[in-house]
């Protein structure tokens, strides 16, 4: 273990995926009877795959005082240990983040408000600071402009980047919005005749018992106040949806921008099977994300799929562990191979993405030692070659194996008999939008902010 620590201590934290954010807002007679935090507990739990290093929650009750608590713990522990000291309120916003020290941002003046955000406004290299500046700007603009809707529209026009946010003001206004490109998702749902909910993913709406009723569109502002919902676009949207959300980040049971994540992943599995077909005896998906790819691959290629690994310990996403050591430990605990599934077989091994290739190398070696004759690796995404400017923290270019080595070279390095990525054009087909409507900067497809 010491060796690992030494080897990887220089590696920067790779774990800043993207926070999950939620806003809860009841309407009408009796609205003050709801306890928003009860719902947020389950909603935030449902978004924890997006990040679990810190949790933040802010509520607003009858007394119209904002009460906020942030802590570097997981949602469950947060509610067990901290939430008790939060004041009960009928309105609340919250986030679960992959960044320590992240949380609900509080701005006292000139307009008192709290903010949670996903992605990154182009205001500072650091996500937390960037949203802090964003919130302050918004507070000042609302004060200056007098109208919250107009103020938010002008801020979205002015601030570039890829972000979605939920802001709650002391005046009981809940402001939700996405940048003009809509890089980061934001979905809306309703419960009965009472409650409106905004969340990063529809899975959180399901878990809170809400019906999914729409998306906040790119460049759109939606404002909830006790007597109305106002909704306006600030200019023509220029859609650049994050493609990585569909491949990896979002939950399989979510719909983002009207597209089923599950459908995209099924398409990817089929596309991998059609692209450069390989003879093999079994298809194995690396849990959790690549299981969906493997099932569709198996069906398309008519090669059976088996459960390849069994997990030890509770489910956490290995990529959102903060250090390489923790990640490798996580992967190894997560991925104990099922020998019977691979012994004396030609195996097609499917994973969702490759960053440095370390964990994949370890996995291929494991399968071979358990008797796999051949291991062909298929990746459900194109090669990661560049950092994400919107907060999904990818290591520097020189640490990305896909940006530095050819597919053949990678296969030698990880000890696989063949290795291939999903071509960019196929990914576009699998999502079902135009290439111009997707952000694929991390795959080397650049576009300029207009």
């Amino acid at each position, binding site marked *: 273990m010491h060796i690992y620590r030494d080897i990887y201590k220089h590696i920067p934290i790779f774990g800043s995926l993207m926070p999950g954010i939620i806003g809860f807002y009841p*309407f*009408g*007679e*009796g609205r003050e*009877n*709801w*306890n928003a935090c*009860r*719902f947020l507990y*389950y909603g935030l739990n449902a978004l924890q795959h997006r990040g679990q290093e810190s949790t933040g929650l802010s509520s607003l009750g009858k007394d119209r005082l904002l009460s906020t608590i942030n802590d570097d713990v997981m949602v469950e522990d947060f509610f067990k240990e901290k939430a008790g000291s939060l004041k009960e309120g009928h309105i609340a916003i919250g986030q679960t983040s992959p960044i320590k020290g992240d949380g609900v941002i509080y701005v006292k003046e000139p307009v008192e408000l709290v903010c949670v955000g996903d992605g990154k406004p182009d205001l500072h290299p650091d996500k937390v600071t960037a949203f802090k500046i964003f919130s302050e700007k918004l507070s000042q603009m609302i004060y200056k402009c007098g109208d919250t809707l107009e103020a938010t529209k002008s801020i979205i026009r002015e601030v570039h980047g890829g972000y979605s946010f939920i802001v709650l003001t002391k005046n009981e206004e809940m402001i939700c919005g996405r940048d003009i490109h809509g890089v980061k998702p934001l979905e*809306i*749902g*309703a*419960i*009965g*005749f*009472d*409650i*409106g909910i905004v969340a990063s993913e529809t899975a959180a709406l399901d*878990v*809170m*018992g809400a*019906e999914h*009723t*729409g998306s906040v569109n790119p460049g759109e502002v*939606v404002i909830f106040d006790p*007597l*109305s*919902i*106002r*909704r306006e676009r600030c200019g023509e949207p220029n859609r650049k949806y994050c493609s990585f959300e569909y491949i990896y980040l979002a939950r399989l049971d979510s719909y983002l921008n009207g597209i089923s994540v599950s459908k995209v992943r099924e398409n990817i599995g089929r596309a991998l099977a059609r692209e450069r077909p390989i003879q093999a005896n079994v298809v194995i998906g690396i849990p959790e994300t690549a299981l969906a790819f493997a099932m569709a691959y198996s069906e398309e290629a008519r090669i059976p799929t088996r459960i390849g690994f069994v997990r030890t310990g509770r489910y956490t996403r290995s990529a959102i562990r903060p250090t390489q050591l923790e990640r490798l430990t996580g992967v190894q605990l997560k991925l104990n191979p099922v020998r019977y599934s691979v012994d004396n077989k030609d195996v097609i091994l499917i994973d969702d993405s490759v960053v440095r290739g370390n964990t994949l190398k370890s996995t291929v070696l494991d399968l071979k030692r358990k008797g796999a004759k051949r291991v062909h690796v298929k990746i459900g995404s194109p090669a990661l070659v560049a950092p994400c400017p919107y907060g999904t923290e990818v290591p520097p270019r020189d640490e990305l194996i896909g940006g530095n080595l050819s597919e053949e070279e990678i296969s030698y390095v990880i000890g696989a008999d063949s290795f291939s990525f999903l071509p960019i054009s196929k990914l576009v087909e699998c999502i079902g939008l135009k290439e111009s409507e997707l952000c694929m900067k991390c795959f080397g497809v650049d576009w300029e902010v207009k």
Partner: protein
Amino acid sequence: MGVGNGAREHIIAKKLAESKYRPKVYWVGELQNPGILRICKQSGGEYALCKTTDPEKVVTHALRWGVDFVFVGPEEPNFHGVPDICEKNGIPCIGASSKLAKIEMSKAELRRLQWKYDLKGKLLFKTFRTAEEASRYLEKYSETLTWLQNVALKPARQAGGRGVKVVDDRHIYLHDEKERFKKQHASWLESYMKSFSGIEDKILVEEKVWGPEYTLQCFTDGKVVKGMPLVQDNKNAHEFDIGTETGGMGSISGPGMTLPFITKDEYEESLKIVDSIVKAIQDEVGECYHGVVAGQMMITEVEGPTIIEMYSRFGDPEALNVLSTLKTDLIDICYGIIDGRLSSINIEFEDSVTVVKAVAPKGYPDFRDLAKNHPVIVDEEKIVNEGCEFYWGSADLKDDGSIVTGGSRVCEILCKSDRFEEASERIERCIAYIRLGDGWGLFHRSDIGSLELLARRMDVADRVRRLYRYRLEKGILGRRFDWLPGLGMVDPVATLKKSLMGESV
């Protein structure tokens, strides 16, 4: 003479005035609706302010003016017996008598009637006189009568859409929160119902259902029930189907008699259901229904087409969708109803689609005091230039010529087209021509008529249709099955029927 002062009455007045008989149109309303007033004046008739729930006062005006017949717009005058007293004075009336209007006034009576006559399209229900009784029952029996877990809590009396809460308590982890909310709402309902007299049941608890909603409005002379094109109203106050239940924030109809998400068969079935209710209430009270009757309906998993509520009149805004496309002379229809020969009248509608959006002052529907008495400024000419029709709703023309909000939906804009989204967009352009002079906010739903919303309705309809059709094929439509560990099979329908035995409708 017409009764009532909303947008629904505005279009009724307009259609009456457009008749080939060139009638003089007289009106009574509680507020001075500027649109109706104009129509009255142009036709040579008059408009009087009058408490429309006071039958004596209403009939005094009718007698004074010597009108040929009375057309009642809203439900409250029906509940209070305006049609009854008109007929007593020899003035024919398009409007359900107070006894017939019970199908709307008492949601509990409607359910009892449906169960007593074993009609199709009904829901399980239970009524209570106090919140305490309701809470106790919900708590005690949610485990043995499992439908009580997922319920709609309603005032037992029609209250303009107010006070309805749907509590879906399927998530055990949120149960305590939902339980608490149910109790709190029950006690709110109890105190709310204190303002209504003449009704014993205060709180109605119904099984919760899901599916696409639609309104089927019909003319009836008591012998035949003739359906109009289906309309879908949007009850949630705000965008994304979020927020409080209202009287309706806007509606769509067409093309043709059904909607894109309702089949022809479902239309026919719905018409039979409404017809069966008219027949049943006539048998029950021994009176003849002549006027407008409507089913506010939903396609549900357990019953297929299902009655959510009944209207003893046109819906508002739904009246605008159907009357704007009505080709037949409304007065011919009225006389068909009055003379009991509606079957011989051919009622025709244009084939176009229609979209209606209501505009309301902030505060509607739950905080009406905030929504009242704001000056309204409208550029009607520009709205007409956009190809839309403008109808005044809850608005009051003052002596000084200013118009102020009455607290409910202040106006409704209608657009006819061959495409929903085009109609919706045209109405959106008109919204800017309506504002409040004191800067208080107005709201409306921009999503009504959008393809996005239509796609969602179709999706819900497809899902629930698959379920009820399967039940239909299996022969178990309308049945409910519960199995309770230790107790065995429980039939909530049998339980309900047993508890209704001995009770009279």
